[in-house]
Every structure is written in C-alpha cells, then in structure tokens.
C-alpha cells in the first residue's frame, strides 16, 4: 500500500521527504479509525452470533457460527414492528421537512427582498425566540397536545416544531445576496412576486434549501425526548423510541438487541452515504450542529 499521495501542484516539498513525514500521521489516523469503528463492528458481529456465543467468555472477537436468526426473530417479533417504526419515522420526518422548508422560504422571502413597515422588527422578534430554551415550552406544549387530543398521533410529532426560526434565518441570509438585477428584469417581464420567488429566488437557492431540508429531516428523524412522551402506542412510535422499548424488553438478549440497533442504524447509514457531501458542507457553512 502506498502511503504518500503525489504532491499537489505548486507544492515545493520534494516527494521523497513527504512520505516519512506523513507516515506517523497516517498511522495515528488508522489507529483512531480502528477505535471509532470498533463499536460498529461489535454491534454487527454480536448481531450475527447465537445468544450463547454473544455472552461467551472469553469473548468471541470473530463470530464462529454466523446466524441471521436474531434478524428474523426481531423482524417478526410480536413486541413491535421495526419496519412499521421506520415507516412512521420516514412519514413524520418527510412531512415535517416539506412543510417546514416551505414555511421558512415563504417567510424569508419578504424579509429579505421586500420593503414594508415592521420588517426588521418582526425579523428580530422571531429571531429572538431562538434564545428561549426548548425546556421552557416542553410541559405547556404537552398539555396543549392533551387538549388538542393529539397524544399518540402524528400531529404531535409534526406540528409543534414546525415554526422553527433558524431556517428562516438561514434562507434570509442567502436570499439577501441574490442580485437585484435578476428580480428587476423579471418584474419588467410582468412577473409577480410569487413567480419571482418560484422561478428566480428558489432555483438560485438550491444549496441552502437542501441544507435546511437535510437538517430538518435529520432533526425530526433523530428526535427522541418529545416522541418518547407524546407517543406511547406501539404502532405509532418512531424508530428511536421503538428501539428503546425493545431494549427494555430484550435487556439480556444481546444478539437480538444488536440486530435491532443494526436495523435501526441502516436507514441513517444509507442516507449518510447518499447525502454525505451536503451534510458536511452544509454543516460547515451554516454553522448548524446536531
């Protein structure tokens, strides 16, 4: 295996000096990768072991008798349906993302590109709500869900977070930078404001829109605390909550437990592979975290 990459164009470092200098760094990175991958390896390898092998001492570093029994028994378990939970999570996250991004775009548009009374006041008013920690509204929003009869319904999972303001902020910052001339030319051609938003502003804003969509989807998909308390009906649970109830039931059946967490990790892993570039670049440009 070769270690040193060819020196980048314009680099003055001679090639033969690069390799020994990079080698320690490469070895450190390899060791750290092993540490980072070990839990994932252990999860998958435990899920492929028989129950006796999973708890055998000394531990089996490599599964001796590979079996898919844990997967079949988890997928057909009467205690909960992983596929159903995955579907619930997908449905809730998709609905949340579509509504949230549309709302944010509609709100950011006049705030960025129109003159009207109260524009800055409203912008700062909604922006300042970012300072209110979520824990303040936890109990009252829960009581509201009780009053609306929304406990154990998708509504409780979709609506309360829908008016988040960070997306408005993110899109407004981008919309402000779009050149005036494009909009003026469209207006001369007789376009109204909705057409300008749809045909000019939004197509030019694909990167922040995708960033916002990816993070909205991930936020909803990974939401844990709120669904844990608002949805107690097993069939309505989302994946993170459902998997936790599994783990309480199968607390000593490690093979099944690890098969269920592996299954729960698969959609996120696939999504990550598809959206890797957006995720990392979106994170570093928007300053969003988790």
């Amino acid at each position, binding site marked *: 295996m070769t270690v040193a990459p060819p020196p980048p164009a314009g680099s003055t470092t001679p090639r033969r000096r690069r390799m020994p200098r990079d080698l320690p*760094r490469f070895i450190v990175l390899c060791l750290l990768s092993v540490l980072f*991958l070990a839990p994932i390896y252990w999860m998958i390898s435990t899920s492929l072991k028989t129950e006796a092998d999973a*708890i055998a001492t000394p531990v089996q570093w490599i599964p001796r008798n590979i079996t898919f029994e844990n997967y079949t028994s988890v997928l057909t378990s009467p205690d909960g349906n992983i596929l159903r939970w995955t579907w619930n999570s997908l449905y809730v996250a998709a609905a949340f993302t579509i509504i949230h991004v549309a709302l944010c775009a509609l709100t950011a548009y006049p705030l960025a590109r129109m003159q009207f009374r109260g524009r800055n006041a409203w912008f700062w008013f909604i922006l300042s709500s970012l300072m209110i920690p979520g824990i303040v509204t936890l109990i009252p929003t829960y009581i509201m869900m009780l009053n609306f009869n929304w406990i154990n319904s998708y509504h409780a999972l979709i609506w309360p977070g829908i008016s988040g*303001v960070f997306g408005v902020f993110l899109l407004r910052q981008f919309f402000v930078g779009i050149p005036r001339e494009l909009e003026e030319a469209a207006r001369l051609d007789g376009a109204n404001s909705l057409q300008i938003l749809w045909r000019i502003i939004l197509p030019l804003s694909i990167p922040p829109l995708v960033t916002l969509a990816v993070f909205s989807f991930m936020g909803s998909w990974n939401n844990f605390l709120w669904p844990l308390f608002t949805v107690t009906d097993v069939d309505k649970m989302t994946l993170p909550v459902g998997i936790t109830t599994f783990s309480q039931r199968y607390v000593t059946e490690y093979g099944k*437990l690890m098969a269920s967490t592996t299954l729960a990790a698969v959609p996120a892993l696939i999504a990550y592979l598809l959206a890797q570039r957006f995720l990392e670049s979106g994170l570093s440009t928007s300053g969003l975290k988790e």
Partner: protein
Amino acid sequence: MTVTNAPSEVATARAPAPRPRLNIEPYLYLLPHALLFFVFTIYPIGYGLYISLHRWDLLSGRQPFVGGEFYRNIFTPGTPQADFFWKTLWNTTFFTIVSVPLLVAAALGLALLLHKPIFGRAFFRAVFFMPGILTVSVMGILWRWMFDNQIGLVNAARELFFRAPPIPWLSTEGLAWVPIVVGTIWWTLGFNMTLYLAALGNVPASLYEAASLDGATPWQSFRFITVPMLAPVTLFVLVTTALASFQLFGQSLVITNGGPSRSTQSVIQYITEEGFTNAQYSSAAAMGFVFGLFMLVLTAIQFRSMARDVKETGA
C-alpha cells in the same frame, strides 16, 4: 395573481405628497408562519408560566392558583423537588465540564491531523463523522453493551491487553459517567471536527509561509497563527457544544437510566420524570423555567455571534 403596486398615474392625479398605499403582499407571505409561530412558540411560553403558577391536576380537572409555591419548592432545601433538581442540575453541569473540553480539543486535534492531504483522507473523515448520524437510542444501547459489566467489549479488551479484572462500569457511582462521556465523544466529535476543518481551510497559507521564512517552528506557527485565526470558530464550537451538553438526556437515559441512584440522571430527565411520570405538571413547568433561565445566558452568547452575522450581510 394581481400586482398590488399602485399605478403611477393615480399618484400624480392626487395630492402632491400621497401616502403610499399599504402593500399587504409581504404580510400575506408572513402569515402562515406567524400563525404557527404564535400557537407553538409564543403561546406556550405564557401558558407554561400560567401552569407553573397553578396546581395542574388532570384527574380532578381543577387548577387552583397557588402563586409561587412550585418555585419556592425548588429553592427550599429539604423538599424532594429541591434535592433532586439541584442534584441533577449539578450532574448535568459536571457532564458539561468534563465533556466540553474533550470535545473541543479532540475535534481540533483530529482536524489538524486531517487538514493536510493524506492517503485515505475522505475515508477517515467519513469514519469520524459517521457515528453522529446514529440516533441517540442506537448510540446508547450500543455503548451500554460496550461497557457491559461482565462481557462488554471494554472489559474484554482490558482482560486481553492488561489481564485486568472486569470493572462494573454501569453500576458504580462515578464510573457510570465513563460510558456516557466516551459514548458522547464518539457520537459528536465528527461535527466539531468538520467545523474546524472548514475553518482551517480559511486560514491564508501566506501567513504560514511568512512565518517559516522568519524561522518559526511548527509549534510557534500553531500557537501564533492557527490558534488566533481559529478563535471565532472555537468560541462557536465551545458555546454550541456546551449548549448541547446541558441538553443531556438520551445518552444517560439509555445507557444508565440515570443510575446508579440518580448519580447520572440529567436535569432534563428529572424534569420529565416529575412532569410525565409523577404527573406534577406545574412543578415540572416551574423547573423548566428555572433551568431555562440558567440556559439563557449561554444561548445569549451564541445569539450575539449570530446577530453579528446578520449585520455583516446587511439587515
């Protein structure tokens, strides 16, 4: 669709200084979000205050006014609310104090290792970033299994490399923090690393060239160029990581369920226990406000850095 701007002929025909007609168009765009914003953000704040000043009893259906009683409970030593609230708030603070420096320093270290081109860089980046996409329950169940008292991988590795006896991590006070902190680092380090990698890419190479011409050692370049140039992103990473750490909930809930004997219970877990398990909604709402006030300071710092961002792009 009608264009609502007033035609110019109308303006010239009227009085010399006509008031521009109120254009309702922008308000129509704002309306859907504004309605939901009032229902799900503004109203719950006031409603929460109302709940915390009344005794909310769902069974009897009556909510008598009790004033500041639930707030007094939190500040009166000896009540269970005060004991557990401050204990779990300290637990959360302890977790923040321990995990934040590790999460910031290790992220910077990783970013420095990966900043310059190296064979397999994209692979390493993916490896360090990937755990962050797992949901907290998957991460928690996995790390509980890693630190299992008898047959977890950590104890097995200690046995293999050091011939050391197994340690009952999950059931020993103090030690139970180790799986939570280690799991959280594994889980979130990649986010901070990515922010640092982006910031490192923005440091002008000419600074390092000038420094090396002046005979600066690598340590001096790091100390006097890299560290100051990264100061803004370090502040951002520090504040967002501290905010996230104070939100500790899922990790300790899934890995230790707050135990042994509440030693790893987070304040948010306690508030949800008081609210949802004990059905003491008013008491939990009051705690939400007290803890919220506590968090407000940190949030204000982050808000200021965002406000600066607004000014730069022109409000």
